[in-house]
């Protein structure tokens, strides 16, 4: 590796380190998982420890899209629009089994996993997931961000 390559890789890892501790999330909350999301965000579990304490309620200011709760077919175009409005680099977390696979809503109204609509980086299963598993998923996302594994 030449000297230029050395500096580029060091710069990438510095940017990745900075990004993983400044996650601005957009919570797309549609259902009961939202309660568990709030529990995780509040002081007892405190996702601010991971630099993800400031939700932005505009997709244009957010890095990570938290899809929290069941997505119906009628809601799918809205989710897609919100994803498209986020600026690069961006990541998506599927929060709860409904967003991962449709969960037990194996019926006419529910999208069978949001990865049929938008790309997903981290899946957090559970109905709803415990705050511990949410934090686990968040740390996995941090590893992914630090490694620079985002799509442009």
């Amino acid at each position, binding site marked *: 590796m030449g000297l230029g390559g050395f500096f580029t890789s060091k710069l990438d890892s510095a940017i990745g380190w900075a990004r993983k501790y400044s996650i601005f999330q957009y919570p797309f909350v549609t259902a009961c998982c939202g309660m568990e999301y709030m529990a995780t965000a509040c002081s007892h579990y405190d996702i601010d420890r991971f630099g993800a304490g400031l939700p932005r309620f505009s997709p244009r200011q957010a890095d990570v899209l938290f899809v929290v709760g069941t997505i119906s*077919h*009628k809601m*799918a175009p809205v989710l*897609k629009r919100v994803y*498209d409005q986020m600026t690069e680099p961006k990541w998506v977390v599927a929060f709860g089994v409904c967003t991962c696979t449709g969960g037990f809503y*194996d*019926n*006419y109204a529910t999208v069978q996993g949001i990865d049929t609509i938008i790309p997903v980086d981290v899946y957090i299963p559970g109905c709803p997931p415990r705050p511990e598993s949410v934090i686990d998923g968040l740390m996995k996302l941090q590893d992914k961000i630090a490694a620079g594994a985002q799509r442009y």
Partner: protein
Amino acid sequence: MTGSDIVAALQQRFGSAIVETHDQHGDHTIVVLREALIEALRHGRDAGALAFDMLCDLTAVDYLKFPGREDGPRFEVVYHLYSIRHNHRLRVKVRVEEDDAVVPTAVPLWPIADWLEREVWDMFGIRFEGHPDLRRLLLYEEFVGHPLRKDYPINRRQPLIGPKI
């Protein structure tokens, strides 16, 4: 009036148009012919002794493969009536065949029937003749079929709507 008095009064007025009556734990039900439905509902709303001024619910039942009802009319549309003035109730049912699933609308009698009939159209595919704006209520326009019909496959997937990747 008690429930049986209501049923007796309606039977006296509409005679053979009321094809069946029954009661369960004091809740009385009449089954009327489709031709006499609107007249019976209007009488129930306007007659002073009945005064059913509130349509609590309007829904439908699919009796496909229901034990004992295999060869009868497939659908039943159910009207739950309540009188605020007299504090009494009545259920009115009308039976319709699958290949002629049309019922006259009750919107002129109770405006709430507008959305209830749109829901029944959405879920069961029963049309309401004379309805001012019979569109799907809960599902979207691109949806194919009527999901609360018993022959709607539970694992049928609808096409995703909106922009795709």
